[in-house]
C-alpha cells in the first residue's frame, strides 16, 4: 500500500504560525457559512444544522402537544361532542406519529449533531453534506404529514398503523399512504444521521480520546446510533410493504392470499421496542453529563454505565413480542419475552444506582438542570417499574391497550426522555446561545411541569385498571371514568402550560440572559473549552485529551495539536480505539446540492403516492442531484 504523504504546501498558512484573535478570525472565515439565503441553505456547519434541527423538533413537539390538548379537552367529560371520531383518530395518530418520529428521535439526534463534534473535539460532523440532506429530508417529511392533516387528509390509523385497518380495504383514500411514505422518508434521515454519528465518534475523536475517555453522552448517542442502524430498517421495510399492498396490489399482509396481519406487528415492534431505547439512551447520556457536572464529582461506575448502555441496546431487540402478548402467540414463546423484558430492568438498575452513587459522594448543586434530572428519577423509576407489570404475560392481558399503558409509557418517555432533555436544554443552552436561561423562570417551569405531569398522568393508571381502553374518542357516563379523566385533563393542561413558560424563558433569555462565558458550570468535557456560542471552526486548535474530564484535569492550559491548515477545512482523522492522529482530512465545503437532492427525494416520495412510476423517474432526478453533490467543484474540493 502506497502511503500518500502529501508534502505540506509551504505557502499554506498553518495554525502554529499565527495565534490569538487572528487565528480565530481566519479559521472562522475558512469554516464560516456565507451570508444570504443561498449561504444559509448551503451550510454544512453541524452547529447551524443542529440548531435548526433542535428548533424544528421542538416545533413539532408543540404541534403534537396541541393535538394532545385537543384530545384531553374531548375526554374531560363523558359523551363530549367537542371532537368527532374522525378528527379524534387523526389527532391521536398525529400526536403519536409526531412525538415518536418527528420529535423524540430527531431531537435526540439533533442534540447529537450539535454536541458530538464539540464533545469529541473536532471541527465538523462526518459527512456534513449528508447531515444537511438529512435535516431537509426530515423537515419535508414532517411538513408532508402536517400539511396533509391541515387539508383534512391526515393519517387516522394510529402511529402503529396496524393492518388490515391501514390496508387498502379498510383505509381507502390517501391518508395511510401519506403516513407510510412519511415514515419511510423520515427514517432515511434518522439512519443517515446515525451513520454520521458513528463515523464521527469512531474516526474524528481528538487525539488522546481513547475509548475510556469518551464522554458518556457521546457513548450513549453512539450506541443509540447502532440501535437506529439495526432497528429502523425494519420499519422502513414494513412501511414499504404497506405502501406496496396499498398502491400496487401486493398481498404481503392479506390473509386471504397467503399474507398475514401479524407479520406487520412483528416488523413494526421489532423496530418499535428498540425505538423506546433510541429515545431513552441519549437521555441517559444527558443525565450522566448533568449529574457529573452538578455533583462536582467524576462519574461513579463509568465502565458499568457504558456496559449497561451496550447491554440495554442488545436486550432491546429481544423484547418486541411483549407488545403482542394478546395476539394469541404460543405461550412458551411469550414467556421467553417476559423473561427478557424483566431482564432489561437490570442494566437500567445499574445506571440508576451509579447515578445515585455519584450524587451521594458528590456535592449536589441544585440548579435547574439537576432539578429536571431529579424529576427524571421520580417519574422514570415509577414508569420503569410499572413496565414490569406489562412484561408479565398474564397481567398484560388486563392492562394492554388501556390507559394504564398510556400512563406507563408517558411516565417512561416523558420522565425518561423529556425531563432529561429539558435539563439538557438548561445545561447546554448557554453553550449554544451564549447566555444562560433564567433560573427563576426555570424553577417555575420545572415545578409546573412536574406537578402538571403527575396530576395528568398518574390517574390514567387507575382509569386503565377501571377498564378504559386506549384510542376511544368518548365514553359513557355510567362507566365512572369521568372524574379521573377530568383530573387528567387539568393536569395535562398545566403540563402544556409549563412548556409555554419554557418557551418564554428560551425566547427572553436569548436577549437578556446572563452572559455565559466559555464554561458557566465549570464542567469537564471539551464542548466547554471553546467560546459560547462556538466559532464555525469549533476549536482554534484541536485539543489533545489526557483525561475523561479534560477541563477538570487541565485547568492551567489546554494541550493542543498544531499543524492544520488555516486556509482549508482540515480536521484530524484518528484511529478507532487509541485515537492516534492519523490523517489530515479535508471536510466538505458548503453546497446547495443536499437541499436540491432532498427536494428531489421529497417530490419522488409524494408523487409515488399517486403513481408508482414516480419511483422510476424520481430516482433518476435524485440520482442527478446526488452526482452533482459528489462531483468535485473547484480546486479546493478536488484536493479533497
Amino acid at each position, binding site marked *: 500500500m502506497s502511503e500518500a504523504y502529501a508534502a505540506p504546501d509551504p505557502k499554506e498558512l498553518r495554525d502554529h504560525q499565527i495565534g490569538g484573535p487572528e487565528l480565530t478570525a481566519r479559521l472562522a472565515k475558512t469554516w464560516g457559512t456565507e451570508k444570504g439565503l443561498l449561504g444559509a441553505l448551503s451550510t454544512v456547519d453541524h452547529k447551524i444544522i443542529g440548531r435548526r434541527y433542535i428548533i424544528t423538533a421542538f416545533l413539532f413537539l408543540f404541534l403534537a402537544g396541541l393535538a394532545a390538548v385537543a384530545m384531553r379537552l374531548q375526554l374531560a367529560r363523558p359523551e363530549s361532542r367537542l371532537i368527532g371520531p374522525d378528527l379524534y383518530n387523526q389527532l391521536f395518530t398525529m400526536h403519536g406519529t409526531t412525538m415518536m418520529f418527528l420529535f423524540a428521535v430527531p431531537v435526540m439526534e439533533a442534540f447529537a449533531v450539535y454536541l458530538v463534534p464539540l464533545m469529541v473535539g473536532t471541527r465538523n460532523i462526518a459527512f456534513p453534506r449528508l447531515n444537511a440532506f438529512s435535516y431537509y429530508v426530515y423537515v419535508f417529511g414532517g411538513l408532508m404529514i402536517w400539511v396533509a392533516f391541515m387539508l383534512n387528509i391526515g393519517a387516522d390509523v394510529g402511529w402503529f398503523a396496524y393492518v388490515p385497518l391501514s390496508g387498502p380495504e379498510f383505509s381507502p383514500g390517501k391518508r395511510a399512504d401519506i403516513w407510510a411514505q412519511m415514515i419511510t422518508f423520515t427514517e432515511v434521515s434518522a439512519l443517515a444521521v446515525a451513520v454520521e454519528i458513528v463515523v464521527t465518534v469512531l474516526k474524528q475523536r481528538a487525539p488522546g480520546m481513547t475509548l475510556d475517555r469518551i464522554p458518556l453522552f457521546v457513548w450513549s448517542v453512539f450506541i443509540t446510533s447502532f440501535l437506529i442502524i439495526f432497528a429502523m430498517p425494519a420499519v422502513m421495510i414494513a412501511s414499504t410493504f404497506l405502501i406496496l399492498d396499498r398502491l400496487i396490489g401486493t398481498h404481503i399482509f392479506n390473509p386471504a392470499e397467503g399474507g398475514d396481519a401479524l407479520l406487520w406487528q412483528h416488523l413494526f415492534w421489532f423496530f418499535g421496542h428498540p425505538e423506546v431505547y433510541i429515545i431513552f439512551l441519549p437521555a441517559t447520556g444527558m443525565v450522566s453529563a448533568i449529574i457529573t457536572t452538578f455533583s462536582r*464529582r467524576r462519574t461513579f461506575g463509568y465502565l458499568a454505565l457504558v456496559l449497561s448502555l451496550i447491554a440495554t441496546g442488545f436486550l432491546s431487540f429481544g423484547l418486541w413480542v411483549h407488545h403482542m402478548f394478546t395476539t394469541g402467540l404460543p405461550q412458551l414463546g411469550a414467556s421467553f419475552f417476559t423473561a427478557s423484558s424483566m431482564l432489561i430492568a437490570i442494566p437500567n438498575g445499574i445506571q440508576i444506582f451509579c447515578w445515585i452513587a455519584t450524587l451521594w459522594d458528590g456535592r449536589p448543586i441544585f440548579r435547574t438542570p439537576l432539578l429536571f434530572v431529579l424529576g427524571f428519577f421520580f417519574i422514570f*423509576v415509577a414508569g420503569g417499574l*410499572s413496565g*414490569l407489570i406489562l412484561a408479565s404475560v398474564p*397481567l398484560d*392481558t*388486563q392492562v394492554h391497550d388501556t390507559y394504564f399503558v398510556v400512563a406507563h409509557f408517558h411516565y417512561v418517555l416523558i420522565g425518561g426522555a423529556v425531563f432529561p432533555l429539558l435539563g439538557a436544554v438548561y445545561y447546554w443552552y448557554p453553550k449554544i446561545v451564549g447566555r444562560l436561561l433564567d433560573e427563576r423562570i426555570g424553577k417555575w417551569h420545572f415545578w409546573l411541569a412536574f406537578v402538571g405531569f403527575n396530576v395528568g398522568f398518574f390517574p390514567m393508571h387507575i382509569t386503565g*385498571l377501571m*377498564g378504559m381502553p386506549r384510542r376511544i374518542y368518548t365514553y359513557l357516563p355510567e*362507566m365512572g371514568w369521568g372524574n379521573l379523566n377530568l383530573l387528567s385533563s387539568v393536569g395535562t393542561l398545566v403540563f402544556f402550560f409549563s412548556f409555554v413558560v419554557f418557551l418564554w424563558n428560551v425566547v427572553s433569555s436569548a436577549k437578556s440572559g446572563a452572559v455565559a462565558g466559555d464554561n458557566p458550570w465549570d464542567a469537564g468535557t471539551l464542548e466547554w473549552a471553546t467560546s459560547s456560542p462556538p466559532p464555525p471552526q469549533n476549536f482554534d486548535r484541536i485539543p489533545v485529551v489526557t483525561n475523561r474530564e479534560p477541563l477538570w484535569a487541565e485547568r492551567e492550559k489546554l494541550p493542543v495539536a498544531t499543524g492544520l491548515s488555516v486556509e482549508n477545512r482540515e480536521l484530524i482523522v484518528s484511529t478507532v480505539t487509541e485515537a492516534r492522529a492519523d490523517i489530515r482530512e479535508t471536510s466538505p465545503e458548503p453546497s446547495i446540492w443536499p437541499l436540491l437532492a432532498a427536494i428531489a427525494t421529497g417530490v419522488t416520495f409524494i408523487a409515488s403516492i399517486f403513481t408508482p412510476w414516480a419511483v422510476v423517474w424520481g430516482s433518476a432526478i435524485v440520482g442527478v442531484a446526488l452526482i452533482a453533490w459528489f462531483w468535485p467543484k473547484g480546486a479546493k474540493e478536488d484536493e479533497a
Partner: protein
Amino acid sequence: MRLRIVSIASLVPLAGCKGWQSALDTHGPGATSLEKLFWIFLFILTVVWILTMLGLLVALRARRDAATDPLAVDATRERTMTRTVATLVGLTAVTVLALTGFSYAYQKRLFDRTENVLTIKVTGHQWWWQVDYEDEQPNRTFTTANEIHIPVGEPVRLKLEASDVIHSFWVPSLMGKMDNIPGRQNVIELQADREGVYRGQCAEFCGWQHAHMAMLIVAKPKAEFENWKNQQIASASPPSDDAQKRGEQVFFTSPCVMCHSVRGTSAGGRVGPDLTHVGSRLTLAAGTLQNTRGNLAAWIVDPQRIKPGTNMPLMQINPQDLDLLVSYLEGLK
C-alpha cells in the same frame, strides 16, 4: 419531596375501583387470580420505588467541600460504593427473578384448558360483536349479537375471530383480553362465579367507532341459562298484535332486510346483527344505548348521530312507520 407523599396517597382510591368494567372488581376465577397477581406486583414495585427514592433523598446531602477537586476520589469510599451498588444490582436481579416466577405461575394457571365446555364463537365486526353458540346438534346452534349469556360457575370457551380488522375481546371483571384477528382464531376461557351483568369493550383500535363497541356478559344460573338458550334457538315469534303486524310489513319493505336476519322469516341479511330476538337484549348499537323504545327509534332514525361512521345507513322513514317498526322489533323477544 412533599409530592411523593401525595402521589402515594393517591394510590388509595385504587382500593375503591368498583365498576362493571373494572379489572379490580373481579367476579371470575381468571380475573380474580390476575387481580391477586397485580396486587403482588404492585406491592413489590411500590416498595422498590420508595426505597429508591429514599436512597436518592439521602444522596442529595452534600458530602464534599466546595473546593475539592472533582476528579479526586477516596479509594476506600469508592470500594464501599462499588460493593453497595453491586449488592443493589444483585437485589434487583432477585426481585426481577421473583416477579418472573410469580408471572409464570399465574400464567400457567390462567391458560389451562378444560374439556367439553360450552363453546361460543365471537366474531368482531366494525363495530359490533357477532355471537355464535355452537352445539353438536346443528339445530341447536344460533346466532345473536353483542350479548353473551353464560351459566354461572361453569367455564365457557370463546373462539375469537374477526371479519374485517383486528378487534380485541375484553371483559375485565371476568378475564384478560385476547385479540380477534382476521385469518386467525384465538381461544380463551372465562367463567363467572356470580350472577350478574359484566361489561366488556373492544380493546384494539378498529376505526371510527372503536369507542362504541361494547358487549355484555350475562351470567345466570344453569336452569335460567338453558331457558334463555332454548328461547334463542327458536325462530322469531310471529307478531302478536296489529301494530306489530303492520310493523313487520314496514320492516320487510324497508332496506333493513338487506343487512339483518330474522330467523323464521325471509329476512336473511348477514351484514348487520341478527335481530331474531333483538327485543330481548339489554342494549342497542353494541352496548351504546339501553334497549328502550325511545332509543330504538332514535337509533333507527339517525344512527350516524349516535355512532358517526357506523355502517348502518340513514333511512328515510315517516314517524308513523317508525312507531310501527319499533313495535315490531320490540316484539322480537
